[in-house]
């Protein structure tokens, strides 16, 4: 039967070629849309890794005239005490300006067993970071006061970096080289759950956390403040602002809310997504209407043939099955070509995405195209089944 259908398709190859190319391009468009959707969905499913609610961010710049490390330290310790003393503040942490949901990045390479891994996000944080953001510790321990004077500089890494460097082995206790020179050695003391720094839909980046030492206060630029959800209000924010601005007279001060920053950063992924979905949706509707029209028209043209089949004993359902199978074969042919191109993405590792995402997207697009073609040929097929042999043959 299939052989016969192939023959029918081959007889009208010119017209079928156009239909097939339409299905082929729709497949490619769907593949692109599904790849992004699957990618975002997989990221969305992962836990955020920290609490952003009730966390405020203060941006400032160190504008102290003195270069003396001790006086800089004393200055910021006093400020820390003043802020912590406010009853609305639960926790406070000084850190480098690559905080979650910001567009600042500090990346460096680390070397483990002579293999260099590039693009590791490098964070400098103080010991309060874990409690302020409620970061989850997976193994090992968080920084302690005594860490400042240990032989190797202690660092924590996130689970994604651990996976990349050590696979299933525990990360705690391993020694890493900062950069590729082998001069600056650091020791992993723990692994934390990855933070989704770029918002709900972003992939957690590989990251390494190191403890702010006394020299860091020269250049740290952010303070994260965990406020009490019940006591902190707008009046408190104004008060906090005055306190900071009066204390750091020569600095620019800005207070932002983590919740708003998250909305903003999500917006940058969502808006292109919505645009893409609208355009993709429109293309699919367009293609569906076109397919439907062409199939419908073809059946009207093949009334004679169908009438003859009915006259020699074919049932209505076998006629409609034939038409549906014909379009499904067409779809299969274009999907084979489409998959050939789409499969190159995981094979060549384009855009550095896990192969699973591409494969899921290919599978989803295939199902979608089949469904579309099936639905579009259902009604024309039903119409064909309703053709009376007498009427159809009479027309000839």
């Amino acid at each position, binding site marked *: 039967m299939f052989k016969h259908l192939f023959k029918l398709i081959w007889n009208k190859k010119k*017209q079928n070629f*156009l*239909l097939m*190319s*339409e299905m082929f*391009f*729709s497949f490619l*468009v769907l593949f692109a849309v599904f790849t992004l959707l699957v990618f975002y969905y997989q990221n969305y499913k992962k836990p955020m890794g920290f609490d952003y609610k009730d966390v405020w961010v203060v*941006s400032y*710049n160190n*504008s102290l005239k003195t270069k003396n490390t001790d006086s800089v330290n004393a200055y910021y310790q006093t400020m820390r005490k003043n802020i912590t003393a406010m009853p609305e503040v639960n926790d406070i942490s000084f850190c480098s300006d690559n905080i979650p949901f910001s567009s600042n990045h500090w990346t460096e390479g680390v070397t483990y067993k002579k293999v260099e891994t590039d693009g590791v996000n490098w964070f400098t944080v103080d010991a309060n970071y874990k409690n302020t953001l409620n970061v989850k510790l997976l193994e090992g321990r968080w920084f302690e006061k005594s860490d400042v004077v240990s032989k190797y500089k202690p660092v924590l890494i996130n689970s994604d970096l651990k996976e990349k460097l050590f696979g299933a082995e525990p990360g705690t206790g391993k020694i890493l080289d900062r950069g590729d020179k082998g001069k600056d050695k650091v020791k992993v003391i723990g692994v934390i759950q990855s933070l989704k720094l770029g918002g709900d839909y972003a992939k957690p980046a590989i990251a390494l956390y190191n403890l702010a030492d006394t020299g860091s206060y020269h250049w740290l630029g952010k303070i994260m403040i965990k406020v009490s959800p019940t006591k902190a209000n*707008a*009046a408190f*924010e*104004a008060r906090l*602002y*005055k306190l900071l*601005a*009066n204390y750091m*007279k*020569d*600095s*620019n*001060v*800005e*207070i*932002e809310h983590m919740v708003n920053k998250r909305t903003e950063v999500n917006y940058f992924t969502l*808006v292109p997504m919505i645009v893409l979905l609208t*355009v993709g949706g*429109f*293309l699919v*509707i*367009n*293609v569906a*209407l*076109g397919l439907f*029209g*062409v199939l419908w*028209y*073809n059946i009207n*043209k093949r009334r004679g043939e169908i009438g003859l089949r009915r006259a020699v004993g074919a049932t209505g359902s076998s006629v409609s099955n034939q038409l549906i199978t014909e379009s499904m074969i067409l779809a299969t042919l274009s999907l084979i070509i489409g998959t050939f191109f789409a499969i190159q993405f995981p094979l060549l590792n384009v855009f550095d995405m896990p192969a699973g995402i591409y494969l899921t997207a290919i599978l989803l697009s295939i199902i979608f195209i089949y469904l579309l073609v099936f639905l579009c040929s259902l009604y024309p097929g039903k119409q064909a089944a309703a053709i009376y042999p007498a009427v159809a043959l009479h027309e000839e």
Partner: protein
Amino acid sequence: MLKNYFKIAIAVLRRRKFFTFISLFGISFTLTILLVLTAFIDKVVGDSYPDRKRDRSLYISRMTEVMQQDGTSSGPVSFYFLDHFVGSLKIPAALAISSGFSGTNTYVNNKKIAVSYKYTNAAYWDVMEYDFIEGKAFNKQQIDNADKVAVISEDMKNQYFGDIPSVVGKYIEADNVKYRVTGVVKNVPITSYMLFSDIYLPYTVAKTDFRKDKGYRGGFFGVLLAKSTGDVSRMQSEFNAMVRRLPMESKDYKKIYCHADPYIVSYVDTGDEKRSGVMLVLSIIGIFTLLVMLLPTLNLVNINITRIMERSSEIGVRKAFGASSRTLVYQFIVENIILTLLGGFIGVILSIIALHFLNSLNLIPNLVLSINFTVLAIGLLVCLIFGLLSGVYPAWRMSKLNVVTALKSQ
């Protein structure tokens, strides 16, 4: 002749309403997408408020320094670099210097207002032509005296002062400092990132003194203005010569790249010396347009070809009476263009509705999209290309029909 074609086209369109609907749907939606896209591009890169003298301006947005070990670091330039090196050029008539905008807060009656502020020099206000709703810009005298004065945007005025007629002379507090308002300007959307701000301040009132920092890189943008459009290329070569002579900042560096480019080039700058931003943006737009147009075109071709048989008797009769293939192709192309223009008309109406909807969403504050003549002209052009693309092949196939088969199949 054309009138006849037009009549035939309308008759054909009315014969099969479902197919006409599919064709028009495809054409009009494709056009709507492309029109919204062009309206957006036109607004973001083509709108010349407030820098109306773009044709004789060059923008300096970034400097890249190559280190001895081939690492590079790159970012906006410093005030010192602009003032000391770029300021010494002979050809430019003026040099506008402004910092990138940064954020701070101000509190009015315990209500927080997020404020973007930016520092400028006096020439900035000569080079840029902001529309002043009231008052005027601060002048060189006020800058030299480090007067605490500010030009604010209309949005800022409404947020901070509320709906009152005049605010010139009143004080606005930002970053814990009070500034006297000298003027209010029409809003600039944030997409013009080199010019956007809520509050514009003299560079001398900044809390850190920019002039003391002798590094080349900082947070500043520069705009060079030439006396005439003819001077622009000379100005650019003078700038490039100056960059070539520039001493290295320290021993760590071996090469400095810095460009003074026309607006579009600097706007889409990728931050990478080897990859041109213009090419990147053009290829992204090109691929997108191709995909958006390709599928509906294929669809239209498909439908047109399917319907050949419907008109075979007409073609047969015309051929039998001596019409050449060329005349037939001509007729079908005209028919197709009429169909596309009809779709284009619907597309324009849909675009107006879509743009109205997008504007009401207010996704980017102060970015008001509109259909203008450029966009309409592009839309018309796209229509014609679309009509030709989807019309030529079916027409050619139709004209190749044999007279005998064409007449017989009926």
